[in-house]
């Protein structure tokens, strides 16, 4: 009796938009935790003076630095949109299957769109 196997679960279960958005919400939450730490360090370096600020500026302008910054922008955008989706759901709306698919897609594409938007404005393209 005790030796009964456990049936497979996450290994076999099919992903769909809502479950993907839900797990990404958690992952971006963890990323944002570290991102805020990074931003704090950035500010601390600013306070320390020009030469220290130069150090972190060089790092942020490197390929890795840019990748991290774009990543953080996306992760914040995603978390924000997904949180709005959760807020609406907490009010009891948007639970119809079709609606959850649409709002899920809005979160995914919206986060990419917001990231691009931030860079268009930030770089002064417009």
């Amino acid at each position, binding site marked *: 009796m005790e*030796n*009964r*196997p*456990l*049936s*497979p*679960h*996450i*290994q*076999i*279960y*099919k992903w*769909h938009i*809502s*479950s993907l958005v*839900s*797990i990404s919400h958690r992952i971006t939450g963890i990323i944002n935790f570290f991102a805020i730490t990074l931003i704090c360090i950035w500010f601390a370096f600013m306070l320390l003076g020009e030469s220290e600020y130069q150090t972190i500026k060089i790092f942020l302008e490197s390929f890795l630095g840019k990748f991290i910054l774009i990543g953080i922008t996306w992760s914040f955008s995603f978390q924000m949109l997904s949180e709005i989706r*959760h807020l609406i*759901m*907490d*009010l*009891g709306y948007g*639970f*119809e*299957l079709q609606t*959850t698919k649409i709002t899920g897609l809005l979160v995914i594409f919206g986060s990419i769109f917001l990231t691009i938007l931030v860079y268009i404005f930030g770089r002064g393209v417009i």
Partner: protein
Amino acid sequence: MVQLSLPKNSEIKKGKYFKDKTGSKNLRKVNIYRWDPSTDEGPRIDTYEVDMDNCPSKVLDILNKIKNEIDSTITYRRSCAHGVCGSCAMNIGGKNGLACTTPHAEIEGDIDIYPLPHLKVKKDLIGDLDGLYKQYQSIEPWLKNNSTKETTEIYQSKEDRAKLDGAYECIMCACCSTSCPSYWWNGDKYLGPAVLLQAYRWIIDSRDEERKARLKKVADELKLYRCHTILNCTNACPKGLNPAKAIAEIKKMLATANV
């Protein structure tokens, strides 16, 4: 606890391969989870080649065909074959559903059939649902009314009756609860979508007088708030019900009412 891999005794091996003997040209491969409690071997996946020219449209028809014509040892639960009893709930093509109402034409490629996820397997496609039934019992799913005599009718307006639509149709097949990652990791404490939908059904019944006590009972960090709106439940429900919405309504009632 979150546990992403299967324990050692649950690892799945490749099993037997049943080649087609009918000579049919319209064949489909069906992979089925097998585990026999009378042997010491672990679970395996057996593959069957099934002649689709002589097979009706549902996944349960495939299972019946295999049991009748290819391998009589395969074990699964079924009864009504019309999506009313909930016996043949299983994981088909990566999604929970009733074998008797799922058309095999909707599944692309080989058909993978597993028992409902994250349950102790009794044999082949039969999972142990005792834990879920105990939780169902814990919400006391019966009418509690102390002010009226047992012999008198309790009236209910059409509007109040309409509130039960979408909740009373549940057949307790467990497709939703066993599709829920929160229920996988915390199934011993979290009540899961099926039981919470039923809790909701009794909370909103206008004839029931224990509304507050019922709400108080589910208002628990683990019993209720482990729902993170992943929505696997609503996606899985073969009756088209919405357990996720019912859970959200319970949360809303708790947030707005004085309990």
